[in-house]
């Protein structure tokens, strides 16, 4: 069994700086978990603590049920793929991949079998005799993954492996990684700052911010039901719009008062949830994809209002427009056929079933 448990993990550096401020996480066997967040959020530090490359200040990490705090990396039965590949420059690809097994005195034919198997999975069989300097970035990354696969460990650890590749290669490698996981099924902990990678690769996504976990959940869960403002704004691109608003109870119906005298009704399904917060300042959150031009639709809770776009970005498959409400920038995604120009008022349609209200003080989604 290769589950990973993190219990109350804290990482504190000399001088009192806390990179990780107490996180709990249970990762199931065979699961692909992605730690995602902006730089400095503690995700790499957490990964390195699982690997044993950073000392754990307090808390426990268990791999396969065994507490590994004091166990050196080599005995944890893990494998890691680094951002800079960390291939041994003086060894051939074959030797790089077989290094872990050589160290543990595996028989030569077993090493050969495993290396060739991994090379087949990653399609690098023709590169086995080359040295790392003769490989491209994508090939090096594959060798790094091959090195991990050969070890057949309990857990794979990935530390931003695609950050050094160009955009096209990144997309390609993403699919490779997913395929490998489907083949080999090893428990995987993957760190990245790119939320697209997180969404496409993960069984579960762990969003981290400033040393704590903001939310854990399946990608769809995080998209549709973010728990905090940070998660709401982090997942999805372009990011969710946050418009300051006020929740008012008037004439028996709950309504949201937005800037520019825009008033939107609260859908019936949400009334009970939001009623206790009437009278308060809130943030109205809505994703650009749910803010469109007025179009024929059978969605029940569409509200309309007027807005004047100031910046127009034709993307080909859609047109992004930006307008400002009392200092808050709002982005909407329009059908490319809609005639729009800066300065000309437009009727916007908001799908209120997809809205979120956020408490500006605590950051929690209501």
């Amino acid at each position, binding site marked *: 069994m290769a589950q990973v448990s993190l219990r109350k993990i804290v990482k504190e550096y000399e001088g009192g700086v806390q990179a990780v401020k107490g996180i709990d996480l249970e990762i199931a066997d065979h699961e692909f978990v992605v730690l995602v967040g902006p730089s400095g959020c503690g995700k790499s530090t957490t990964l390195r603590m699982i*690997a*044993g*490359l950073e000392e754990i200040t307090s808390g426990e990490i268990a791999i396969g049920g065994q507490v590994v705090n004091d166990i*050196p*990396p*080599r005995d944890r039965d*893990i*494998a*890691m793929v*680094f951002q*800079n590949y*960390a*291939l*041994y*420059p*003086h060894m051939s690809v074959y030797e790089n991949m077989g*290094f*872990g097994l050589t*160290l*543990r005195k595996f028989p030569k034919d077993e090493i050969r079998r495993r290396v060739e198997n991994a090379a087949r999975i990653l399609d690098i069989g023709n590169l086995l005799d080359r*040295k790392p*300097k*003769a490989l491209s970035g994508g090939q090096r990354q594959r060798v790094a993954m091959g*090195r991990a696969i050969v*070890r057949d460990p309990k857990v794979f650890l990935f530390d931003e492996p695609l950050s050094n590749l160009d955009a096209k290669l990144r997309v390609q490698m993403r699919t490779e990684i997913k395929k490998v996981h489907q083949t080999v099924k090893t428990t995987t902990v993957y760190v990245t700052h790119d939320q697209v990678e997180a969404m496409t690769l993960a069984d579960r996504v762990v969003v981290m911010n400033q040393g704590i976990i903001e939310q854990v959940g399946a990608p769809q869960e995080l998209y549709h039901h973010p728990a905090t403002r940070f998660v709401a704004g982090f997942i999805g691109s372009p990011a969710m719009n946050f418009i300051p608003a006020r929740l008012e109870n008037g004439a028996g119906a709950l309504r949201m008062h937005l800037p520019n005298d825009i008033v939107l009704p609260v859908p019936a399904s949400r009334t009970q949830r939001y009623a206790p917060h009437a009278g308060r300042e809130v943030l109205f959150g809505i994703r650009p994809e749910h803010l469109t031009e007025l179009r024929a639709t059978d969605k029940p809770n569409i509200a309309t209002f007027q807005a004047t776009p100031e910046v127009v970005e034709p993307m080909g498959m859609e047109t992004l427009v930006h307008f400002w409400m009392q200092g808050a920038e709002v982005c909407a995604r329009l059908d490319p056929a809609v005639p729009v120009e800066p300065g000309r008022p437009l009727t916007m349609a908001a799908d209120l079933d997809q809205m979120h209200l956020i408490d500006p003080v605590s950051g929690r989604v209501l």
Partner: protein
Amino acid sequence: MADGNVVMARGMPAAVAPPQKGTLHRIARRRSTLAFLMTLPLLAVIGGLVAYPFFYALYLSMLNKRMTRFVGIDNFTFLLSRETFQAVIWQSVLFAVSAVIAKALIGFILAHVLHALPAKGQRKWRGMLLVPWVIPPAVSTLAWWWMFDPSYSAINWVLTTVGVPPVAWLGEPSWARFSVILVNVWYGAPFFMIMYLAALKSVPDQLYEAAAIDGATGWQKLRYVTVPMMKNIIAITVLFSLIVTFANFDIVRILTNGGPQDKTHIFGTYAFQVGIQSGDIPLGSAVSLFMFPILAVFAIFVLRDVTRRNKEMTG
């Protein structure tokens, strides 16, 4: 009119064609002459004070003692037949090889120790450990000479205090050889330490992390990551030190002056004794020249190896 045409034809280019062409030429020529002039002093030093004396030494070595006639390789054959000189060859090799091995080992160990220390402590200890290299060897050897003194040796005092019989550091041939090697190691190990420390710092940390995860213990990391990555520096420093140690003069001269019974003479000190003290310049020249082929062989081997490995790893 022909003249008129010619005048016009000449007038046109003069006005239209860029005048720089001639100037460019001059600049290019001037540039390389300027560069040449700037390296002239260097050339003079190397040519006049290194290359010329070297060939002159070759010439001198083939003269008779009074330098009146040419004797070919007689001096060399004479030296090779003498037991003393055969011993000098053996002593020089023993001295150079054992000293360099010891220095490399100590330097390697100390570099690792220093590398593992936190930055502030590292500076402090490194500062203290480099002192033997900083003091001129001719000066520090005096201190060793005093510590090895037959009657007053402070080291012997320590030995007798713990019940060990005193050692004739400079009086007995085997001990004298040991002492000379010891002082050279004392002087030269810090150099290796500094070089290896710089090389250690250039090995990326992530390679060690990858090795740790792959399953390497400390010793295995040393064998599979550190040493292969440092092979170039190790080779260069060993070569450099072999040359310098082989050609040593100061330490042996002050400590034992080749004695007792010429048992610690190396090429440099023997050449001095034969050439300058006994006044036989050609013979002394021959002695020194014996060094050269050995050094050249070392240099060629290691350089070839180094350039090959450089191409492999960085392409």
